[in-house]
């Protein structure tokens, strides 16, 4: 009796997409519900939250591409280009929306005033660290986008550039994660 195995490549593809889609949906709920929080700045908070979570999920997905780049495996260039550009755009959106919500953070009786009065180190150390390291992923992803757009398919003949691209993507992910976690700590401490 023959036992037909499942097409493992197809199954892996479906499971990866389900996992990524599920994670994105559930994580978006984490910030999407900001819209219903009792604050007149709920929209600003939600837009920043959605853009940063999206940047984090896409950035994490990109690290899986980075492993292949580091190993020198042949890469699907159009797909890599599209994901890199998407990640760059999401990081830019996170910065713009971050500036937008930062205004309220600094506003009269805003989170900064409360934190400085209650637990000043969270502003003086954590926020002053977070507001700058959160900017790092964007230029790093711009470099990644530049590399894929400039070298196009010739990437596969320069293994060192491909590896460097992988390292850039991994570095960007690290700073996305760092900024996201510190931002979440501050938002938990005092919502806008």
């Amino acid at each position, binding site marked *: 009796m023959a036992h037909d195995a499942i097409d493992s490549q197809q199954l892996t593809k479906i499971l990866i997409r389900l996992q990524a889609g599920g994670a994105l949906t559930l994580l978006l709920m984490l910030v999407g519900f900001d819209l219903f929080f009792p604050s007149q700045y709920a929209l600003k908070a939600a837009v920043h939250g959605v853009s940063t979570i999206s940047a984090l999920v896409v950035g994490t997905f990109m690290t899986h591409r980075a492993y292949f780049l580091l190993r020198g495996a042949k890469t699907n260039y159009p797909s890599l280009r599209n994901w890199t550009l998407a990640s760059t755009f999401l990081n830019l959106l996170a910065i713009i929306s971050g*500036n937008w919500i930062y205004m*309220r953070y600094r*506003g009269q009786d805003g989170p900064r005033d409360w934190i400085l009065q209650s637990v000043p180190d969270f502003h*003086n150390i954590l926020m002053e*660290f977070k507001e700058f390291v959160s900017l*790092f992923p964007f230029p790093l992803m711009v*470099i990644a986008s530049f590399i894929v757009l400039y*070298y196009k398919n010739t990437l596969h003949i320069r293994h*060192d550039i491909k590896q460097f691209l992988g*390292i850039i993507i991994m570095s960007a992910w690290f700073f996305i994660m760092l900024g996201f976690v510190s931002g979440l700590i501050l938002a938990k401490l005092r919502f806008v």
Partner: protein
Amino acid sequence: MNTDKQSSTPLETDTPTYSGPVIAATLSALLGMLTLVVTHHISRLTKGLDKLIHSYGYWMPGSTGTGPDGSIGNYSGKETLAVFVWLATWLIFHYLWRKQDFSLRAFVAFFLGALAFLMLGLFHPLIDPVVLFIAGLFGYA
């Protein structure tokens, strides 16, 4: 770092395969990030320097203002200066190195070290004594 022009013949295609443009893009981005770190520490030294840094960001909507809606404040100036340094140096470096080939293997160590340095340069408990020492040399602390 090897700065010789690439001697090998292009493989399969005529499109560029020099690593110079990668170094140019990366180094300029690192300089932009360094600008963020430096302007941040400078703006904390005196009110005058804070105002000076802030003034570069006045073009940005929401850069000034008070009340519950707040403003971006001097952060707008730091971002502006960082973007200016990043893009200006990128143009220059790219023009200079677009047909140069460098060792990326050697550059990776520098790149990761620079990122770690920039990150730690934003952690006040660690960097403030250093900043105050340097500022003291210029009579600002």
